């Protein structure tokens, strides 16, 4: 997930904090109050949030690349406009999230540098390539679909600016999910070649989508703390199960086969059972070994470096104008 904790076990916080402040903070969080930027908060809470929100922002921005890859090749004008608007929305999400993270005292520049140096993570899903037009459908349907599963509960996350950003973002993500599914529907109602494309996209994106929810709960060291702080509201496995339960019937409805021989409805549980996830692959992608991880980072770094003179010029110009204004007063 964009927000899945991809770091290892966090160091216990070394700073001694006033127990009365900590207790008051914990009580507010337990009471579902929003914590606002000016409120006192434990350092570990702040750090966890900066890590999570900036990772989420990076995921939105890096996530523009696999889909941006198809804007110039979209099959008709309507699809081109929808995709362009969608990728633009993702950029907007990145922007709100960087702003939310900045309220915690870390600048956008610092966050971007952390991304480019490899210190900060982004969702593993964007290190898989988009090979055919069907991948654009699969990403909207599955990746945005998974994002919604994760982000709907975050609308009630304890940090106010993050929760409010999520409200806005969730609305747009559900459009994206529907538009993606609609691409898949059109392909599945199309020619043999189109159906093949659609099935192949599901085959490739299914497991990486399940991995987006992060490691299983028994191997997710920071989940308990995050849930107690209401930064997170459901566990990785709970969200993953929800996603499978919702998505499998959608695949069946358009004649696609989910690539999991172990998948079956379990009446007793009221859920689908599904096969084992290849966690070795997941951790390899987290380490930066995804097929197109190098391409993604190279593209981001190049855009940033190529744009440096533009940012400098804008700043220099603003300063000149400011100076001229002062001189005129």
């Amino acid at each position: 997930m964009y927000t899945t904790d991809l770091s290892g076990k966090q160091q216990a916080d070394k700073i001694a904090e006033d127990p009365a402040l900590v207790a008051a903070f914990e009580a507010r969080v337990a009471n579902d109050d929003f914590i606002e930027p000016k409120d006192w908060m434990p350092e570990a809470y702040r750090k966890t949030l900066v890590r999570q929100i900036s990772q989420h922002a990076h995921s939105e921005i890096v996530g523009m690349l696999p889909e941006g890859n198809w804007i110039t090749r979209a099959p008709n004008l309507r699809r081109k406009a929808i995709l362009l608007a969608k990728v633009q929305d993702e950029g907007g999400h990145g922007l709100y999230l960087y702003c939310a993270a900045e309220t915690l005292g870390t600048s956008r520049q610092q966050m971007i540098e952390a991304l480019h140096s490899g210190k900060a993570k982004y969702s593993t899903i964007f290190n898989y390539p988009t090979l055919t037009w069907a991948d654009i459908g699969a990403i909207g349907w599955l990746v945005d679909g998974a994002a919604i599963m994760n982000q709907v509960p975050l609308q009630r996350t304890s940090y106010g600016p993050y929760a409010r950003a999520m409200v806005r973002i969730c609305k747009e993500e559900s459009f994206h999910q529907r538009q993606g599914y609609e691409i898949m529907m059109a392909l599945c109602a199309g020619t043999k070649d189109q159906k093949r494309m659609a099935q192949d996209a599901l085959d490739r994106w299914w497991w990486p989508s399940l991995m987006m929810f992060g490691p299983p709960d028994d191997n997710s060291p920071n989940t308990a703390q995050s849930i107690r702080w209401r930064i997170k509201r459901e566990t990785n496995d709970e969200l993953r199960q929800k996603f499978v339960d919702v998505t499998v019937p959608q695949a069946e409805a358009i004649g696609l086969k989910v690539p999991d021989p172990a998948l079956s409805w379990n009446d007793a549980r009221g859920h689908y059972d599904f096969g084992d996830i290849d966690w070795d692959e997941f951790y390899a992608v987290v380490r930066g070994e995804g097929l197109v991880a190098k391409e993604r980072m190279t593209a981001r770094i190049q855009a940033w470096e190529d744009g440096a003179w533009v940012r400098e010029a804008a700043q220099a110009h603003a300063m000149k104008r400011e100076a001229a204004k002062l001189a005129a007063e």
Partner: protein
Amino acid sequence: MAKASTLFTYALRLGDDSLIIGQRLSEWCGHAPTIEVDLSLANVALDQIGQATHFLALAGAIEGKGRDADALAFKRDVLDFTNCLLVEQPNGDFAQTIARQFLFSHYQALLFGELAQSKDERFAAIAAKAAKEVAYHANLASDWVVRLGDGTDESRTRMDQGLQWMWRFVDELFVMDEVDAAAQKAGVGVDKAALRAAWDQRIDGVLNDATLARPASRRPALGGRKGHHSEHLGHVLSEMQFLQRAYPGAVW
């Protein structure tokens, strides 16, 4: 009353201009200097794709041979594309993209302002909506010309080079050939030649703010309206049309 073939070509040219610059701008998506710039370029691209869709649909309707906007966008080759040479020019660096947008958006703003008064309500309606969009594009591009021109030494050099690249394609925007003349005579089209003075004034005003010199006049590069393009358009089309060409008859 203008001939249908005249109005078809007239609508096609408007649609092709918007389509090709929209396609060019969308190449930036995900690669711009800041997120804010990325969003604003995508906005302009979206408006242009929207205008293209309307004008090409109108062209198809006038033609009456069952070609819709997609058929016109995705199933014609270079010789049948009628966009001006300016819009197909490569993005280059950000300054080159801005130079192209600056020159083109001010032209579009003046053009659509007039076209909104067209006797043909179909053209007038599309132009009236588009006029608001392109007025915003012209402002956006002008602001960047000023920032880059009056920014750092590097940005100034790049802005100047961007304008130098694009300037030879300016005259083509205002050429009135037989199609334009016939459309204008019928009260449908615009006297583009008459827009030139206002365009010059707008451009010079912004260049002045930007402390940039106006590039020297030179022999104009022409041909786009008749399908005689630069080498760039073929590559733009081969990318844009790939799916429609590879899977004929498929519905997406």
